[in-house]
């Protein structure tokens, strides 16, 4: 199994490092034709406006949206915004993969960025994981099909719909690799076995 990491801009190397720790092969994706070589895709944190702009000017928005509909995908922060079906900003084009509404930079500017424990229920056991929120978005609404796997202060911060996973925080910035392990074991491997 090879997992692609969208490498237009952002913390793509950090995701690659976590996947390597998990023993998963990776490929940095900078061109649409590379998507053919990967079984799943991570969309990293960064600026969603930059990613939208580059995808549009290189004309592969449709290709990547189609890919995301048919394969396991995991988006963090900016990546989660792209996976949503509604964003409070016309500057970002959402891919309509997860039935949720997202508000960008909803906690405020960098001075409001924070580190906190998230209540997480990924493997069904319950527990806490440390999470870094950087100019983070907020998930303000979710559809019936959406499963909430993580909450901070009662609000959803880690959600899943089918084979798509989205976190408003950055599991790639801490040593805790549970969320990536969940994506690989519970989503990618099961999708492959199916």
């Amino acid at each position: 199994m090879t997992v692609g990491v969208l490498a237009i801009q952002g913390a793509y190397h950090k995701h690659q490092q976590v996947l390597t720790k998990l023993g998963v092969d990776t490929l940095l994706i900078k061109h649409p034709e590379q998507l053919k070589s990967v079984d799943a895709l991570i969309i990293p944190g960064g600026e969603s406006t930059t990613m939208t702009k580059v995808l549009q000017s290189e004309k592969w928005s449709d290709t990547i949206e189609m890919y995301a509909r048919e394969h396991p995908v995991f988006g963090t922060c900016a990546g989660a915004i792209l996976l949503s079906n509604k964003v409070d900003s016309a500057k970002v084009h959402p891919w309509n993969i997860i039935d949720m509404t997202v508000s960008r930079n909803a906690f405020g500017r960098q001075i409001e960025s924070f580190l906190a424990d998230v209540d997480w229920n990924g493997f069904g056991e319950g527990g806490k994981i440390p999470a870094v929120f950087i100019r983070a978005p907020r998930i303000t609404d979710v559809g019936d099909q959406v499963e909430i796997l993580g909450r901070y202060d009662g609000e959803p911060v880690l959600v899943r719909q089918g084979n798509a996973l989205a976190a408003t925080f950055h599991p790639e910035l801490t040593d805790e690799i549970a969320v990536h392990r969940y994506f690989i074991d519970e989503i990618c491997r099961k999708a492959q076995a199916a």
Partner: protein
Amino acid sequence: MEKGSFEVKTGLAEMLKGGVIMDVTNAEQAIIAENAGAVAVMALERIPADIREHGGIARMSDPKLIKEIQASVSIPVMAKCRIGHFAEAQILESLEIDYIDESEVLTPADEVNHIYKHDFKVPFVCGCRNLGEALRRIGEGAALIRTKGEAGTGNIVEAVRHMRTVQNEIKRLSTLGDDQLMSASKELGAPYSVVKEVADTGKLPVPNFAAGGIATPADASLMMQLGAESCFVGSGIFKSNDPARRAEAIVLAVTHYDEPEELAKVSEGLGEAMVGINMSDIPEAERLAERGW
């Protein structure tokens, strides 16, 4: 819940990787930058090339201008304070600037001390010419390092010198034994704990960006290939004759920094780049990189 920790500060720098941070002097330019794909803008009253020409004392920008720029874009907004001018930094923090650049482009306020950056909740970026300077700034709390280069020249030669110097010194450090690190720390004039960390990991403990002289997509590619993780572009964009196109081309060049065919495509027909200045035409006293220590 913890705000302003070092993890949270470097976290934003991680998100800015593989991107372009553009100098802008008004809301209109900020919007052009954001539309072109900038990951952040640096709010300034004058871009470095004009500071150079204008002369006199260069200070922190007018808060009114900074607020207008903040209101016009959704990406992070950075601003510069003078070296050692912690009061300017406090003001910028109160304006909720996303990253403060303690910058040699402005006239230094303190010739001995840089700002003690651990005191702040907002992160700082600082320039360096070599590893010792980088590690001193990190010791003071900088969460992001950039080369100084020579701002406002459109000449990449100094940024290359600084990036190569830092990389060579990191390589050298990682060949030393534990018994040699205290002496290396003395030589570099940098805190032992940070020197040890660099020797052990073979890299800086914070992201390392390029700045000072980037004017073309090829310049951005060069700096990325030399080890920069993002590029600051100052005068290079809004001193060229088609800023929107050049801005977008440099954004694409940073994404595809190691793909010459892509770089050729984005470099086509960009119009005139900024004119640029040869280093030999700048008297020692007017070299911005010499400010700070």
